Structure formats: C-alpha cells, structure tokens
C-alpha cells in the first residue's frame, strides 16, 4: 500500500524535505510511519500528526491512500 507524507515549518527543515511517498506491506500506526520514514531522526517533542487533514492520535492506523502530515505546534493568528 501507498501513502503520502508531508512535513511543515521547522519539521520540514528538520527532516530536510517537504514530502515523500511510502510503500509498505503491512498496516502501520502514525507513529510507525514516522519511524519508517525517518529511521535515523529523533522525533521532536510536541510534534503533531494529521491524517487526511484531521488531527489523529499517534496510535491510529494508516490505510492505503492516506495523506499523513507531521508538523510542529501551530502558531497562527
């Protein structure tokens, strides 16, 4: 199965790119997606995760076609 992963703001600079595609066989949690994609990188404290533009728990499962996003605490307004 295939999912798309996006990174924003300081996290984009931390991982060094803004997006990539992941292909894998078994079902993964959001947390596993991070470590699958960034095996050699620490997960910055307070990082937020969204699937299909909705906030999710790090233990929720990702399915084929999902769009996952990782980003730091938001600072708009």
């Amino acid at each position: 199965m295939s999912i798309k992963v996006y990174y924003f703001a300081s996290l984009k600079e931390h991982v060094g790119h803004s997006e990539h595609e992941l292909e894998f066989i078994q079902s993964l949690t959001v947390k596993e997606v991070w470590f699958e994609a960034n095996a050699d990188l620490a997960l910055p404290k307070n990082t937020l995760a969204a699937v299909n533009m909705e906030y999710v728990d790090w233990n929720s499962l990702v399915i084929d076609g999902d769009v996952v996003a990782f980003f730091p605490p938001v600072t708009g307004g």
Partner: protein
Amino acid sequence: MAIQIIDHAFDPYHEIQRYQSTQPDYLGAIGATSIFIGTMRDFNQGSQVTGMSIEHYPGMTEKQLSLCVEKAQGLWSILDSLIIHRVGTITPNEVIVLIAVWSSHRGDAFDATRYIMEALKSTVPFWKKECLDADAERWVTSNTSGYQ
C-alpha cells in the same frame, strides 16, 4: 459564513464592509458585531522584528477553520461570521488575522469571537517565522494563551 486565506496585505475594514454588503437577509436581526484584528508587531520576545513569513497547510487550514466556526455555532447563536488570515511575507503593522462575528446579542458575539480566535491559535495549521534582521530568522515555537 466565509473563510479566506490570502497572500497579500488587506484592509480589514474594507473587507468587513464588502462582506456585510452581501448579507441583507437578516440585517434587522443583527444587534451585535464583534471583531478581532491581529496585527504584526515590530517587537516580540525581546527582539526587534523586521518581517515575518507565514506557512500553512493548504486544505487542512480551511478544514480546521471551518471546524472552529462549526464548534462556535454549536455553542452560541451566530448569524454570520468572516475569517481572513494572511499567509506569505508580512511586514510590521500589517493585519495577520481578522475575525468578525454577527449575532443578535452581544454575549454570543463576544464569546464566539474569542472562542474562534483561541481555537484558531491552537488548532489551525499556520506557522510563523520571524525575520530579526537581514540574516537571522527564527520560527515562533508556540502561541501564548489569550486567557490569563
């Protein structure tokens, strides 16, 4: 109800007036208009700030802003609302965010405006990076609470 993400400077009063001209149906029912305008300051966290850039997550931004408004509608009686938020490059004194809420009663208008502002600050995927001088810049790492 309208939500706009724009990448150029805007006059909040002009935008409110323009939007209001589209809402004649319930005009006589409006007793209270509450407006919040967030503006870029030239000083933050001990440093002179010369500019700012705001990044966002297109799509999720609109989705989360809609959710802020829906939640406010569930909690208070609102006739209409307008939210405009800047993205891209901003200079001091420019408007970052405009929230306007129209209601029959002032309590609803005040509460809903403040709720939407706090919800925006904590849930909508915008990120600010401040320019401190020609070379230095820094990400704003967290928003403060608007309640003491």
